[in-house]
């Protein structure tokens, strides 16, 4: 493994499996407004905080406006400069330059070298290098100067980033000489702005391939690595009560802690009630629950749950329950994912409830929603957090079709809810459609939502019903 320099940027070091190649130059390519400067600045900021002084060179912006913009992210470069942990070189290339004969960039290299030496810099960033190299109109000259700059920097044994505009001519050369190349990209799909980072090259090191979404937040860059999913999770053992003792029995002891559970059913079948029952029971057991509500606000959720006798208020007050209420349309799936993951990191819940995961489709398109779901599941799985997702099935979906959606293949357990109109009113039914690794019941049971919560009848309406996952429910202990 080659030596690496952590960037300190959330998620990036994970993608780079430790950081940038130490003592080498990394090229950061991207179009206008993709976030190159922010990446470069944050890299220097985090390193300075870690005790590694840095040098920032720009050919585009004035030092004062750059520092001002950085301050908006909470990065006080002026203070670092005063403490001699940071230096900024802003070179204005706009004054009238008349060209007469051949020239090179030894001046720039000398300036960088001497400034770096003066503050003992270990890291650097050169922003908008294409502006400097754009002074060379002849392509072969440009690529020679580029390689010269690269070599001179490499000789300094500094670790650094050079940002380059994507469409800058002749910059492909850079990719050949560099050991590490990152590409940023920003696009709008379905009116949703998404930013992505991709490692296109990393000599001598592994890295997470794929395109990794990132956000530029008020506190810097936040990257969410799309990991090659390691399927090495320890098999679940501990059980978490669903909050309904009869359902725990049908499940063979409750949900498995740290796994994914889906409660599927049409509108009005009692999904939110069942999920809230689980939340309340977990809180009562001394565990923390993050309840992400994409359907209603915290207050209307609390109010709605009072009728089936679930009072969430004391748990909210005690701090063991937290509601994250977000309008799906309010932002794109990436931002939603960041927002829930940030809440998870801050609150470190034992369980995460999402009501309803099907609402994520309104964050963008179907594939973006699925991406959100999968990544949330793996994020939780990595941390041993139970996921309980409700999902809206089409009206009158039968039990047998309830597990017939993409996400169910990723869930260890699917509980189906259905209702049917009878002369005496709706009859609600519940079934454990699948529950991996358990000896669960596979009948369909009537249930009621009363002022005391969910009550499941002991006699099944369909005792011998085989679930679509017959293999897994083989030997199910039917009543």
């Amino acid at each position, binding site marked *: 493994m080659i030596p690496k320099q952590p960037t300190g940027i959330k998620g990036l070091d994970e993608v780079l499996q430790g950081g940038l190649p130490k003592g080498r130059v990394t090229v950061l390519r991207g179009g206008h407004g993709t976030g190159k400067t922010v990446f470069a600045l944050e890299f220097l900021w985090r390193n300075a905080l870690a005790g590694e002084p840095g040098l920032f060179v720009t*050919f585009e912006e004035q030092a004062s406006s750059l520092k001002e913009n950085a301050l908006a992210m909470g990065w006080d470069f002026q203070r670092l400069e005063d403490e001699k942990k940071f230096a900024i*070189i802003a*070179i*204005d*290339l706009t*004054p*009238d*330059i*008349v*060209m*007469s*004969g*051949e*020239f*090179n*960039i*030894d*001046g*720039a290299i*000398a*300036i960088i*070298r*001497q*400034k770096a030496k003066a503050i003992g810099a270990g890291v650097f960033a050169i922003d908008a290098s294409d502006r*400097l190299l754009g*002074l060379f109109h002849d392509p072969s000259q440009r690529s020679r100067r580029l390689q010269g700059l690269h070599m001179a920097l490499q000789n300094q044994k500094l670790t650094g980033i050079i940002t380059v505009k994507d469409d800058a001519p002749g910059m492909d050369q850079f990719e050949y000489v560099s050991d590490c190349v990152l590409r940023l990209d920003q696009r709008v799909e379905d009116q949703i702005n998404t930013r992505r980072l991709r490692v296109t090259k990393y000599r001598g090191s592994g890295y997470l391939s794929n395109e990794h979404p990132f956000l530029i937040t008020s506190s810097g860059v936040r990257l969410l690595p799309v990991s090659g999913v390691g399927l090495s999770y320890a098999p679940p053992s501990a059980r978490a009560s669903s909050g309904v003792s009869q359902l725990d029995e049908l499940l063979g002891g409750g949900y498995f802690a740290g796994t994914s559970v889906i409660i599927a059913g049409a509108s009005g079948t009692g999904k939110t009630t069942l999920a809230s029952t689980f939340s309340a029971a977990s809180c009562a057991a001394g565990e923390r629950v993050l309840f992400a509500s994409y359907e209603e606000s915290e207050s209307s959720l609390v109010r709605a749950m009072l009728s089936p006798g679930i009072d969430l208020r004391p748990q909210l007050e005690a701090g063991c329950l937290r509601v994250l209420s977000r309008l799906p349309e309010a932002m794109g799936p990436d931002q939603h994912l960041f927002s829930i993951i940030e809440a998870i990191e801050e609150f470190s819940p034992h369980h995460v409830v999402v009501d309803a995961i099907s609402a994520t489709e309104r964050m963008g398109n179907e594939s973006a929603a699925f991406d959100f779901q999968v990544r949330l599941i793996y994020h939780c799985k990595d941390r041993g957090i139970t996921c309980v997702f409700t999902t809206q099935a089409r009206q009158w979906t039968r039990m047998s079709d309830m597990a017939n959606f993409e996400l169910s293949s990723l869930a260890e357990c699917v509980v189906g809810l259905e209702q049917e109109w009878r002369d005496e009113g709706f009859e609600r039914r519940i079934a454990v459609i699948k529950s991996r690794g358990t000896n669960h019941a596979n009948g369909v049971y009537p249930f009621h939502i009363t002022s005391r919560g969910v009550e499941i009848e002991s006699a099944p309406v369909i005792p011998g019903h085989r679930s679509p996952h017959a293999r897994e429910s083989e030997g199910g202990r039917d009543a």
Partner: protein
Amino acid sequence: MPDHDFSNSERPKFRFLLFIADGEPNSVAAKENLRSFCAEELGVDHEVEVVNVLDDAQPALDHGIVLTPALLVVEPPPRVIVAGSLSDRDKIRFALRLPTPARAL
């Protein structure tokens, strides 16, 4: 009689800072090209200070000079930078707003 006398109020009309990376071919050429240009076209009414960026880069930074060699025209104003080996005299004349001599055919 404005001779070599730069002593008091009499400043030369042309004052230059020549930024070089000492030893580098373009810089070596620039020094020589400037010397002959001044001698042949400016006479004695000039002053050149050579700055080796490899010794001290601070003056280059102060003047925003990143290319070498580069000639900074200090006097007369406005401030102009002529970058390169100064092989093209027309460009220097242009920068100094001197007339281009008629060429012999």
